[in-house]
């Protein structure tokens, strides 16, 4: 092949901060006539008010219920009828709203996002309606699904002690019922401010024009003079933590093992990204090989760590669905053999180098679309996290080097330091269907 291998991909990134504190990031790409726009607020379910579990997510629904100049369903109608798609999601430390549209609708999207950043306009009827919708969302995704909420709702209350990290993020129904319109407005005024957000524009536009439009629509939105500071730190863990949850539908026992990861942007944090892939990188990963292929205890395993998109205590989690003829305790013992082998024998370059090749390939894939059917969705997501958490969107072009520089010695040292019982939590889902047989 004569085509040069692009070893060093460079993503164009331009950014500025408006006078009200709104950060604006643009990544132009003129190859197709579409733009993807995102507004990310630095508020996620970690920081929802006490006694209001599930509120950050309920609030995200309210952001589609009407703003000053665009009433209920108008956001959706205006995006769909411009030829675009939209959505929003609530995460640990961010809530995002995003659209992909033909590039002639860029100004309209900015107008809409600015309108709801400036003034949410919702009433009790909207709140009642969306509370009902959210309850059905919880039923369809958690209560009426095998392994629903496993383990993202199971692990935090076992692993963590500080309420922001340890509560039910989808929300107890009693808490959802207790939410009032006053709560909605207060949350909006506290967190949905330009100086707590980043606007991202990706795709087919002239950056100077895009920045001009951003300024035109967003710069006169008043900032929140006093953003609250929240303490999401965890007390030092000194013992292994255990939890048990009844699995009402699924027939197999399931185990989640979560190790708490080092803080963002520390040297160990990069090692964590590589160790995660050593253990969980598909069928060549050590855990799949051991539990599914060699020992044939598990029917399936997967795992991962949300390192790039979290800004507080987070875990690398292994999920194991094992055959009912094996015990969960025995399964964890075999899992522990994988960990002990890494601690005692480390890793050779013949394994580490391919892990890094796959890591690089997966990073490009994430930038390209990130598995979401919107152009540059993954790139948008990373730029937002790098801007909000690290203050530097250009990290998107630098971060790979940190992961690819990890050495075998670092991997082994990490395993000894972090992959230890007093740094982990284990939750087992016991199937109701097996209860009689036990």
């Amino acid at each position, binding site marked *: *092949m004569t*085509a040069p*291998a692009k*070893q060093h991909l460079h993503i164009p990134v331009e950014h500025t901060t408006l006078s009200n504190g709104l950060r604006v990031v643009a990544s132009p790409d003129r190859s197709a006539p*579409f733009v993807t726009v995102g507004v990310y607020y630095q508020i996620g379910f970690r920081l929802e008010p006490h006694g209001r579990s599930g509120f950050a997510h309920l609030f995200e629904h309210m952001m589609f219920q009407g703003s000053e*100049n665009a009433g209920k*369903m108008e956001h*959706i109608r205006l995006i*769909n*009828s*411009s*030829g*675009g798609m939209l959505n929003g999601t609530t995460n640990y430390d961010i809530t995002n709203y995003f659209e*992909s549209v*033909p*590039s*002639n*609708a860029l*100004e*309209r999207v900015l*107008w*809409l996002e600015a309108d709801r950043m400036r003034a949410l306009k919702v009433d009790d009827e909207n709140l*009642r*309606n*969306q509370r*009902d*919708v*959210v*309850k*059905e969302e919880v*039923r*369809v995704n958690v*209560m*009426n*699904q*095998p392994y629903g909420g496993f383990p993202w709702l199971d692990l935090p209350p076992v692993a963590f002690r500080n309420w922001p990290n340890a509560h039910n993020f989808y929300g107890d129904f009693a808490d959802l019922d207790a939410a009032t319109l006053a709560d909605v407005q207060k949350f909006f005024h506290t967190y949905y401010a330009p100086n707590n957000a980043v606007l991202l524009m990706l*795709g*087919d536009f002239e950056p100077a024009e895009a920045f001009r439009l951003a300024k035109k629509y967003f710069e006169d939105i008043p900032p929140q003079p006093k953003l609250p500071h929240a303490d999401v730190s965890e007390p030092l863990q000194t013992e292994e933590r255990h939890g048990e949850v009844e699995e009402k539908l699924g*027939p*197999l026992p399931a185990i989640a093992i979560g190790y708490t990861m080092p803080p963002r942007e520390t040297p160990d944090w990069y090692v964590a990204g590589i160790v995660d892939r050593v253990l969980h990188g*598909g*069928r*060549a990963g050590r855990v799949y*090989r051991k539990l*599914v*292929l060699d020992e044939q205890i598990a*029917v*399936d395993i997967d795992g991962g760590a949300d390192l790039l998109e979290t800004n507080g205590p987070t875990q690398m989690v292994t999920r194991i669905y094992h055959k009912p003829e094996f015990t969960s305790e025995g399964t964890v013992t075999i899992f522990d053999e994988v960990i002990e082998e890494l601690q005692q024998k480390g890793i050779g370059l013949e394994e580490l180098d391919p892990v890094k*090749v*796959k890591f*690089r*390939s*997966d990073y490009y*894939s994430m930038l*390209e*679309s990130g*598995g979401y*059917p*919107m*152009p540059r969705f993954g790139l948008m997501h990373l730029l937002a996290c790098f801007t909000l958490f690290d203050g530097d969107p250009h990290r998107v072009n630098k971060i790979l080097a940190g992961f690819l520089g990890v050495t075998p010695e670092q991997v082994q040292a990490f395993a000894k330091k972090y992959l230890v019982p007093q740094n982990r939590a284990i939750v087992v889902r016991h199937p109701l269907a097996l209860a009689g047989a036990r």
Partner: protein
Amino acid sequence: MSVSAASVVARANPPALGPESAVVWPKRTVTTLSNGLQVVLVESRNFPRISAQLYFRSGNALVSDTAPGLAEITATVVRSGTVSRPSRRIEEDLRRMGAGLGTSSGADFSAISSAGLAEFSSGILELMADLARHASFPSEEFERERRQRLEELKIERTTPGFLATERLRGVLFGAHPYAVVAPREEQLAAITRDQLVAFYHSHYVPADSLLIVVGDFTAAEMLAQIGEIFGTWKAPKAEPPASPAPPHQRGRRVHLVHRPGTVQTQVVLGNLSITRRDSDWFPLVLANSILGGAFHSRLVLNIREQKGYTYSPGSGVNPLRQRGYFTVRAAVRNDVVAATLTEMFYEMDRMRSVPVTEEELSSAQSYLTGVFSLGVATQDGLLGQLATVYLDQLPEGYLETYRERIRALDARDVQAAARRHFDSANAQIVVVGDRDQIGEQAALFGPVTEYDAKGNEVV
């Protein structure tokens, strides 16, 4: 709260759309090798990766009367070893090339897909060819995968969406092979390794197959590479048997899948419909978009945004190769099952009897053409669109003319399509939930047949 005159006056209007840019679908290199393998190549050079999909036009529908699930378990085991590479080596080779691999089978096709770094494109294609030509089906891998699939089947039988689709497909397609969406446990248990090998040798053949590659390469060089890797592959193609006709349903009937104690009911109703090759396809897609195929559709507005019955309602047209089917679905709380069905039929009937407004029509046209064209801007989107066109053997120019064909339709076309394809009078209704909580509500809509979660009729 009151809406004052002042606030109405103060309302700003959204900015008008700028001039529309033309969507240019990328140049395709389309050729058929002498062994019958059709090759479709598209250069997409923003990121240093390639994505490749190798399709065989043989799937579970071919074997649903003799060995249900055979195509699927064949696809699963195909990645577990070749004559020269044991399973472990395959997975290590993939990782070394920064590549992932997927093997799958649907009703009408089986596929081997891989995506990875462009610098390893020849290695990735060689591995795919190795799997397609020299898979060895090791006995122990077959037994391991079959056990895994058995456990997955048990999990599927606890999943409301699966149970609803299984029952609806069974009812709509009857003796036609599309009736079967998954094997029974005992059917999977009866499959032998020899059957996998026989299916593989008969159906993983170059004649009538399709290779799509998108990514960072030059088409001429990629084509030469593919010629070297796949050109020597020769195997004859077996003629598929004709399928029995699906039943002709008259009158609404209710099919209740009983799951005691569930907190929510999965509702899905539907009727047989058309394929993408039918002349009604475009008006049907447009009508479906207005009914329930988009966030801003009547069904979502009604039962989600006004009534709060459900989180993710929708309607869909599901084109398989021989026939299609139309569905309306929602997961709702147990006390509004009858109310939900009432609104679903109301919305279907309204599409049939009252023309859509000009505003709805043009909104839906813009939505469909915009979102369709978004496919041009991601590698996965492009692969999906190309697979639709070439796997279904749609006319050349399908992508390029989609926009004008949708734009050319009017409210009468939409109504006519709704009258032909939203068959509310004869729709088959599936509800998956607790009989004691929803049985009476469901019975208001037609005679009820009850099933258990294993798929057996309860007499």
